[in-house]
């Protein structure tokens, strides 16, 4: 691997010379794509070497997905051309791309759960004899692919729905291999994987690379990029702004390229005063989790809840908000017992909930921005029983301005917004309903760095307006950077709340994985850096210990 192609903007002459020396696996040259007046891609160049892992990073809305859709033939570019292994490449659709050797592995798994591993791997390309599926040939081809991935342990006859998510992802990769893919695109492949499965996936990616396949790896997690990729290309506002070796570029440098500015004050703290108690939980117990949670939240307080996924954090806030059943214990809001109240009454007493699952719960996907934003509080726009769409729209416009939501306007369908902007709409809904107690479940999940910084600043401002914030997150740096105090959940049990200065990432991990809080707390007090829990609990879903 000694081809000097680090500069994607090099002249086409030298580019051609290089490609003759050792043909690049893939070249995308001057790709442009516009949707109406939005320029999603502007003359993007991307070079992928044979047998390398090439990370594609950038904020949400930077154009990564659009670029990959062009690569897979799902979108036709307005300008530009592509060269795959030295031959011109212009797929008319995903099938075309697959036949040419470009395979996509999507965030959402696209497997048929009721079919077996081998049927899934060879779906659509089954070896046949006289119209009958050739079972033995099928099995040997699948086993070959699984062995290449060092995972001969997956039984080809197993039903895919019975496999873990991690194993299912491997089946997807095997499918790409069986299709003789030369370039495999992985779009946020780890978003639903546990830590252990992520490591397995990385091994698989390296196995792919060693067999000469090129991998384009899209991720929000720069730690992952560092662990798995050889080179990276940064997209910003639809332009490729830099390509380089991962090893020789510090993470801060990559972030700077992504956002086009320094994020030194990423966790900027707005000074705020902590007031009287507004939410008080005493031995709150749900059907499975939480178990006897005690918690006190005060006005102007930002209280973080750390813990692994499946530890019962989400169930805790859902029980508070009345979405999940409370078996015993009590919830008090400003001294009034609200135990067992349903969401409409909780809303009325100023409690708002931001769901961790933006797609299936947080937002109604075929409604517009204004509908989503005002849904929980339409009353101000109703006079004599009639709703004034104009006034609702005006209010939505105000929130769009205040939170800097990037949208064409209140009537744009919510699906047209990037993830970060969708999340801002969901947050705006809580603010619009004038909630005083904000239960935020993973408010920064799956959104870009710039939007994250905006949301941190917003949460700080809200605390300064003496709103109380309960914030669940799997990303420790943000909890340690923004919160006043922290509690950690493990298997349904909530630890004592302590000021954030008494916690270190190690101490949190210690409690979250089942250690005693006491010894860990002494080792606290360090700068919040790195070490995201990423909430990957291999035991997620198990019964909590008694």
């Amino acid at each position, binding site marked *: 691997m000694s081809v000097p192609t680090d500069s994607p903007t090099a002249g086409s002459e030298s580019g051609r010379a290089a490609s003759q020396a050792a043909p690049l696996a893939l070249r995308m040259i001057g790709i442009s794509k516009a949707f109406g007046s939005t320029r999603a891609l502007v003359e993007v160049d991307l070079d992928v070497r044979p047998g390398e892992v090439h990370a594609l990073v950038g904020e949400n809305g930077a154009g990564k997905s659009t670029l990959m859709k062009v690569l897979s033939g799902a979108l036709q570019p307005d300008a530009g051309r592509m060269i795959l292994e030295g031959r011109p490449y212009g797929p008319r659709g995903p099938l075309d791309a697959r036949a040419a050797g470009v395979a996509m592995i999507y965030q959402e798994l696209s497997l048929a759960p009721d079919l077996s591993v081998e049927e899934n791997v060879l779906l659509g390309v089954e070896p046949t004899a006289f119209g009958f599926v050739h079972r033995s040939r099928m099995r040997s081809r699948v086993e070959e692919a699984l062995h290449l991935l060092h995972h001969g342990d997956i039984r080809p006859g197993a039903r895919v729905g019975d496999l873990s998510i991690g194993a299912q992802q491997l089946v997807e990769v095997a499918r790409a291999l069986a299709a003789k893919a030369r370039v495999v695109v992985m779009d946020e492949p780890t978003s639903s994987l546990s830590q252990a499965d992520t490591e397995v996936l990385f091994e698989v990616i390296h196995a792919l690379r060693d067999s000469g396949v090129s991998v384009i790896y899209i991720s929000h997690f720069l730690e992952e990029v560092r662990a798995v990729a050889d080179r990276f290309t940064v997209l910003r506002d639809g332009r490729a702004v830099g390509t380089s070796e991962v090893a020789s570029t510090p993470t801060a440098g990559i972030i700077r390229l992504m956002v086009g500015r320094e994020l030194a004050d990423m966790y900027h703290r707005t000074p705020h005063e902590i007031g009287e108690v507004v939410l008080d939980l005493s031995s709150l117990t749900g059907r499975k989790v939480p178990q006897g949670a005690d918690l006190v939240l005060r006005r102007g307080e930002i209280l973080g809840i750390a813990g692994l996924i499946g530890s019962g954090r989400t169930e805790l806030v859902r029980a508070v908000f009345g979405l999940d059943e409370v078996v015993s214990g009590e919830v008090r809001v400003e001294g009034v017992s609200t135990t067992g109240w349903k969401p409409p009454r909780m809303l009325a007493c100023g409690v708002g*909930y931001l769901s961790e699952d933006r797609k299936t719960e947080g937002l109604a996907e075929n409604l517009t921005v204004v509908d989503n934003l005002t849904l929980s509080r339409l009353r101000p726009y109703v006079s004599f029983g009639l*709703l004034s769409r104009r006034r609702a729209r005006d209010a939505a416009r105000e929130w769009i301005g205040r939170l800097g939501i990037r949208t064409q306007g209140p009537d744009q369908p919510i699906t047209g917004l990037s993830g970060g902007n969708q999340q801002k709409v969901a947050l705006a809904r809580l603010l619009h309903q004038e909630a005083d107690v904000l239960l935020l479940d993973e408010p920064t999940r799956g959104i870009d760095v710039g939007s994250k910084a905006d949301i941190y600043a917003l949460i700080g401002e809200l605390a300064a307006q003496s709103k109380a914030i309960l914030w669940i997150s799997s990303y420790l740096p943000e909890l340690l950077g923004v919160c006043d105090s922290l509690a950690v959940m493990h298997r349904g049990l909530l630890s004592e709340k302590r000021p954030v200065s008494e916690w270190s990432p190690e101490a949190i991990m210690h409690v979250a994985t089942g250690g005693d809080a006491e010894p860990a707390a002494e080792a606290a007090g360090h700068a919040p850096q790195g070490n995201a829990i990423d909430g990957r609990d291999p035991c997620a879903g198990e019964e909590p210990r008694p």
Partner: protein
Amino acid sequence: MTRDTGPELLEAPRQAAYRRLINLLGPMIGLILIIFAGGVAEQRMGGSLNYWSPQNQCLILTQTITVAMGAIGMTLIIISGGIDLSAGSLIALTAVASAWIVRELSPADVAATLGGFEAVWVPAVALAGGVALGCLAGGVNGFLITRLKLAPFIITLGMMSFARGAAKGIANMQRIDAPLNWISEFTAANLVLFRMNVRRVYDLPVLGEVRIDWVGPAAISAAVVVTVALAIAAAVLLGRMRLGRHIFAIGSNEATARLCGVRVEWTKWLVYAMAGAMFGLAGVTDFGRLSVGDPTTAMGKELDIIAAVVIGGGSLNGGVGSVFGSLIGALLMAHLRNLCVHLGLPNYVQEMVVGVVIIVAVTVDRLRQRRRD
């Protein structure tokens, strides 16, 4: 964050109104195409052009009302993400029930027509009773769907069979004969809009000889006016009232609606009850039209009603639909049937044509939406 959204913001409201109009335009164009093509076909086949006559157009309006009333209710249900298969059976049940009420409350000596004071209140009670019974049955649907947490498809499938059986039980496996009353007047085409007397033969350049024989009053029934009024009310409910926005939100994403404090169960229950009342009204009009309570009436009507909603742009996934679209859908199907009669096509051809049109209409609509995304 860039905030260069100024000019686009100003455009937005106009866009929304425009989009709504476009959504109605699809079914509208389909309807116009059918009317146009139908007229041409009739002329080609025999030279006459009675299908286009104002008299016939008014007749079609009157023939649409049962499906149209049902479609108004079904639109609410489909937007909320549900379905109601019991609509046809509920029409039969309420038709029989209102006939039964008229028969039971009429004095024994009345032969053919109600007279005196009874002529006013007996049918009124029957009307109220039919609507109330429909509302009750719809309420039961909604109650079971929200309490048992079962799919609307299953619950209303059960209600479809139950209500049909109940109708036959009330009618004792026969038709219920009732004295003539104002419900029949209400559904008969006796609101004369205008009269015309055109009987002429034109010799047009391309088409050739065209015989126009448009004689007599162009009349609609009062039920048409009531249907239009109810459609306007339902459209206002859906578009301009809190309840309506909640119905859209539930159909679009039930989990989101619940999280936003929408009383999901209560709203669904209301939706099925309101739709049931509409089916009840459709049943009473059916009784008026036939002037007997026939327990086998409106067999399979629920499918016509669902088709009307879907042709009109409603999505069976919920969250999408429009009352006026559904009305156009209902009208489109009435036109098809009427047209087949004018073209002298046998009944089985009618049914096949209706089937093809449903599939074509929905396909075209989905293609249009995909392009917009």
